């Protein structure tokens, strides 16, 4: 029996987020939120492990109440229970404060074998949360895991694979462990519609909301107060638009294609 906790974030769909060059801020109005894409892979991994070894999968998210929509989706995918860690005091947290809050929530859940995060979020892309939570819980952590090969429930060990640019790394660790995974390690399953509907009908049965007091966190270490990071300025870095359209395939066009790639210093 494996007990797995997956941390997810409810993020604005950055594809729709535009930058206001005058104010120097990002425009978030009218932008729908989604589950941070690699977090979906984290959920999928957890559910696949549950199917293989048995057990339970919980999801936690430190977010404003609007994130309940994302948690419902996670439940619909097959997660047993979701916890929304939400309190006004958590607002404006940097990764340190967030990791602290999440580790408090994980401790509150109690026993666990595996904590999985998406490797980074599409709206801030730090990749901090996994390692920081691992440190705060005092357990091993590994980022950019591409595969969980085997979990030995007797020996309480886990074998993992990480594909890096110049090879493949194999790891073994003692449980419990924190890992983070990237987009593309698996294909997230479709949220089961009936389960999605049932979550809608009986939200409280599947989703619990915890505030600061519930997780016993130190008010000084959460939210803005607990965050040593300050955002000083946001600037947009325009990406040069490059567009190459080759509509037929022949020896000539392949040559042309290679020439253009060389010109663009891509190869």
């Amino acid at each position, binding site marked *: 029996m494996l007990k797995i906790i997956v941390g997810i974030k409810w993020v604005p769909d950055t594809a*729709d987020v535009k930058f206001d060059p005058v104010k120097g801020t990002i425009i978030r109005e009218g932008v729908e939120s989604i589950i941070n894409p690699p977090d979906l892979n984290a959920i999928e991994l957890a559910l696949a492990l549950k199917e293989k070894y048995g057990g339970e999968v919980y999801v936690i998210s430190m977010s404003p109440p609007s994130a309940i929509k994302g948690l419902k989706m996670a439940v*619909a995918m097959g997660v047993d229970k979701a916890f929304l860690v939400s309190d006004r005091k958590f607002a404006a947290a940097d990764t340190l404060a967030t990791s602290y809050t999440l580790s408090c929530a994980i401790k509150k859940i109690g026993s666990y074998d595996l904590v999985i995060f998406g490797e980074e979020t599409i709206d801030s892309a730090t990749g901090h949360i996994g390692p920081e939570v691992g440190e705060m819980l005092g357990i091993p952590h590994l980022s950019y895991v591409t595969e969980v090969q085997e979990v030995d429930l007797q020996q309480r060990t886990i074998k993992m694979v990480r594909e890096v640019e110049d090879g493949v790394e194999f790891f073994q660790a003692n449980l419990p462990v924190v890992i983070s995974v990237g987009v593309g390690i698996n294909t997230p399953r*479709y949220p089961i519609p*009936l389960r*999605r*509907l049932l979550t*809608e*009908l009986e939200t409280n049965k599947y989703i619990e909301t915890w505030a600061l007091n519930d997780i016993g966190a130190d008010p000084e270490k959460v939210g803005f107060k607990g965050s040593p990071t300050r955002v000083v300025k946001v600037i947009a870095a325009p990406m040069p638009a490059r567009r190459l359209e080759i509509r037929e395939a022949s020896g000539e066009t392949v040559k042309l294609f290679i020439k253009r790639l060389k010109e663009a210093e891509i190869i």
Partner: protein
Amino acid sequence: MLPSRPYFTFMPSWAVSVFYLSVVAALIFFFAKMFFEVRRYGFKISKLKNINVKIKNLLETEKLLLTDIYGGVAHTFVAIGLFILFLGTICVFIEYDILLKFFNTRFLTGVVYLSYEVVMDVAGLIFFLGVLAAIVRRAFVKPSRLINRKEDAVILFILLYGGLSGFIMEGIRLAIKPVPWGSASFVGYILSQMFVLTGLTYNLGCGIYPFLWLSHGLTLSVAVVAFAFTKLKHFPLYFLGVQNPLEKWVTPFNLPLVLESKKIEVPLGVNKPSTLSWDQKINAEACVNCGRCEEACPAYRAGKILSPRNIVQKISFTLKKSLNKELISSIINEDEIWSCTTDGACVKACPALINPLDYIVGLRRYQAMNLGKVPGSALFNILVRDNPYGLPRSERIGWRKNLDIKVLKEGEETDVLYWVGCAASYDARLQKVAQTVVKILRKAGVDFAVLKDEGCCGELARRLGDEYLFQEIMFRNIEKLKKYKFRILLTTCPHGYNIFKNDYSEFNGKFKVYSHIEFINKLLEEGKLEIKANLSKKVTYHDPCYLKLYNNLTQEPRKILMKAAGLKFVETKKFYCCGGGGGGNWFESKGEQRPNILRFRDTLEVNPDLIAVACPYCLSMFEDAAKTEGYEEKVEVKDIAEIISELLE
């Protein structure tokens, strides 16, 4: 002497008793079997509706059968012959067993009797020829869709024997005991002359006759039983079942009611025969395995694992054995249900009013709703980004950048609200169709606008079995659309057109929906658009299923093309779906060939320079096929709007 019907000539009384007993037993068997069977399927007499309509439909059904001349004529001959012979038997029963016995009167005398004999012989002859034709068809012609089973041989033998023995009997009777009016039974009379010529003696005739008579009578009893136990039950069941029409899909729940009551009945969809509705069960039983649905199926044609006939036959077979057997995986393969393009050709082809698509949708719904099993990523994309492409929401308006189209504000009014649809909003090629429609609307001076926040229409979700997602989207859209004032909802996608017209309307979302083809035709007819140039290319037209089969919208595109191309417009000989519907545009199901390639080849048979389509999926499917087949330079594929737009200058 007044001609009248002779009864039980040369018959020993024991044989007559055996006959009566067998008839009574057969009727008991027939009614008991029918009773227990339909009761097992949950049929109640109160559910018997529209029997008048059913009787009227019988003629339509026979007309449909006649689309296959050989098989159709054979069936019609057998059916009409049998029906008249049955009425004849009823007449005899009334005269002999009621009038003569209780009232000592009769009516089959004189001219009435002679006419009766003529009619009976004509009916017998028609019946016999029909049976012979059917035997020749099954034994020698062997059309590929017919699968011969023992049952078919047995039934044909019973029918053949019934017809043959009747005539021979009549012949013997007239040969050994001639009557002056014998020639009224003209078939029997000819036979009697032959028997006389071959030297049939009175004693031999008297000896053979009772056995022949009894076997003929017993054939009747066996046939009565066969109407309950064999495929012949399609006839009684035809009157009991209700066909779910192609365009009106039955929903397993109504979302607002579910959300309000916080209750939902599970499972949703079909997994075991018990989860079928009573009419679905009865309809499955009515299948005679004729294979017309299979012949019309684009997936089957492309060598995919699906055959609508097999779906119905497998369900019918399982139904007989157990109501609680899981259908998917052991009996019906998952790939079968996902190969369906939901075009509905099978439904339109079935003479027994069976809706094979209804079973497939039920099975899809179970897989999708309860297990989350749907192929491809299109539904996930809709769930997350409100379009099957998974492209950002903000890119939806990309097609109308720089077009300066009126975007409707709440409370504002417009004559025509143009619902662009995901395909024409996101796909680079299909955006051109939307842009052309805008050009045409402007040319005709139409007051139109688009929504600022158009989204998915939910069609794909419904076709793939996620009824929850569909209803979520639909109710959201209905609420949204009701905020605006418009007269006409204009669509370029037949899938959107149909979902608004036939599905939304079932949930109180009634709008006046127009397909762009319908609307362009209207503008042309009203003189608001004028075709100023003639199309110089030979053009053929491929009907979208969701216009042709679901909505019978076939005349408008032809009128437009006739105006545009005149004699250069040629019809493709066959009709099949392009393969893009029911999810086909979004994931590839396994198969030897691809439906779009086959369909493209159909159109090539008339050597067109240009293939006109009226659906974004068809356009993609045909362009893809043209590329694959190396016809990219030789044959153009265009939406009718694009063709017309060029001719308006």
